[in-house]
């Protein structure tokens, strides 16, 4: 374990996105932003207020927005197009494929309100398949920051990175994991705790849950390594292979369909490098429902409790 984490409540990653968008907009005059009638919810309003001339409100027309962003990128701008993840990816998918991924243009798609932790609005607004969709676009870089610090840092990295990208953000406030000085590199996982018994790999809000799980396991004498997989693509193969070799058992947790997101991608790397037992935490083959975010992560099994149970299952299989 070694390091302990306080996990004090911080800002939502969508709000951190809004703040960071304003920062990168101040730094780089090529940055432009687009939204589809959700700027108050995605917090792209921060940018829109300061740079009205560089902000394009597209109305409720996500596919058009995505292709406009692709055009802006082709002409040399750095467009950040935001909406709920469910709408920008699902409605804009064909445009992402043909106007962004295929010609490999420098668009940044930001999907907020990902996962089921949006709560009361229910499944039509929830995105439980976005990592899968984004990872099925060749050439796309896919980021899924866990807290406000990593979102801001990765937004700066995203602006400097040339190439199409999807950035996943959430609705609820989430605990702060990182100190402000933490460095982030796209494609490099961050090891949060040391351990040799089992590795807990997580992304998004499951990172804090995995830290909590590691702390609880520590009290039982089980030393868990926690990896924040903030980049879903390209995956940090070295960190995964090393974890498999050094700890011999892995748990992968995500607020996403369990058979279509981070877990299966990690399993591919593990089977190619150093096969070891694995267990998975995620959403099982269903749409969720309306309830409070707290009730939903409980009902659909996305708590440290579920990570701990998976760790025990995988430890039982490890020899």
């Amino acid at each position, binding site marked *: 374990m070694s390091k302990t984490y306080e996990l004090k409540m911080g800002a939502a990653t969508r709000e951190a996105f809004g703040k960071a968008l304003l920062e990168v907009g101040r730094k780089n005059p090529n940055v432009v932003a687009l939204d589809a*009638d959700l700027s108050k919810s995605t917090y792209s309003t921060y940018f829109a207020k300061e740079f009205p001339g560089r902000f394009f409100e597209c109305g409720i027309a996500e596919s058009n927005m995505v292709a406009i962003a692709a055009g802006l990128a082709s002409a040399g701008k750095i467009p950040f197009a935001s909406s709920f993840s469910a709408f920008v990816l*699902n*409605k804009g998918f064909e445009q992402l494929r043909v106007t962004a991924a295929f010609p490999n243009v420098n668009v940044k798609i930001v999907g907020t309100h990902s996962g089921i932790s949006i709560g009361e609005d229910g499944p039509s607004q929830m995105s439980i398949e976005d990592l899968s969709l984004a990872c099925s676009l060749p050439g796309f870089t896919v980021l899924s920051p866990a807290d406000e610090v990593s979102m801001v840092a990765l937004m700066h990295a995203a602006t400097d990175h040339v190439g199409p990208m999807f950035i996943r953000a959430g609705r609820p406030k989430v605990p702060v994991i990182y100190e402000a000085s933490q460095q982030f590199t796209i494609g490099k996982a961050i090891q949060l705790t040391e351990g040799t018994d089992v590795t807990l790999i997580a992304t998004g809000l499951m990172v804090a849950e995995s830290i909590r799980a590691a702390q609880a396991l520590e009290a039982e004498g089980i030393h868990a390594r926690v990896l924040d997989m903030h980049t879903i693509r390209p995956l940090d193969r070295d960190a995964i292979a090393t974890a498999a070799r050094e700890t011999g058992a892995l748990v992968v947790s995500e607020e996403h369909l369990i058979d279509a997101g981070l877990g299966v991608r990690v399993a591919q790397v593990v089977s190619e490098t150093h096969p070891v037992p694995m267990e998975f935490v995620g959403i099982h083959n269903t749409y969720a429902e*309306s309830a409070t975010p707290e009730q*939903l992560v409980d009902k659909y099994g996305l708590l440290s409790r579920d990570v701990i149970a998976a760790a025990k299952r995988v430890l039982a299989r490890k020899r």
Partner: protein
Amino acid sequence: MQKTTDAAQLSALARRMRRTAIEMIMEAKSGHPGGSLSIAEIIVTLYFDVLRHDPANPQWKDRDRFILSKGHCCPILYAVMAECGYTPKDQLLTLRKLGSIYQGHPDVRFIPALEASTGSLGQGLSIGLGMALSAKLEQSDARTYVVLGDGEIQEGQIWEAAMFAAFHKMDNIVAIVDYNKIQLDGFTKDILDLEPLVDKWRSFGWHVLNIDGHSIPALQQAFAEASATKGKPTVIVANTIKGKGVSFMENNPKFHGAAPSKEEFAQAMAELA
């Protein structure tokens, strides 16, 4: 349920449904009051006068279909469907809570009589076309009614559906645009103006009726004219006020998707008494 053509009775019912919708949103502490209030007369006129339906027989093959394409405004629809007897009235205040059939957006897994799961804007008219095509295939005179938001019709799919409906002379479908002039981020004229709206629909080959969406006689007349119009689909551009009936919500973008405070709720209840 008791159907009626009496405008005064329908108007009183609309007022009561508004009250129930606000109570539901208050209890849920979230939801979309503005666009629920703007369609009160439309939904009440449909369910209590115009629609051919039977709450005791929701699967009736020849029933008219209703789709709330702007699914976020479901509180008023739930209130009306419960009043009709489709769903329990005594559970209305469980809106958006764990285990409730009254989901945050219409969900046919919980209420099959809703006809369609909506919430992602832009798709209801196409679903309605499918139902209307099926009615034609079955030689049923069932009609399909779809309520669209004005912000919603910024979606390109709406215009694909509009073209299809006119080309196929679908006179058994009626679209109603809730022209309340406000969407999520603000006024439609500032976000992505829809004007000239009547001309747009007309040029797409639709029979267009431009009416006061809060006038029950105007709605009744428009629905009658739609039924009598052969060879083309009809769209009713219903000019409405977002938040209608609660003074501080009227024409106020703030109440697109926010529950009232305690004090605001008390005032709303007084105004809708």
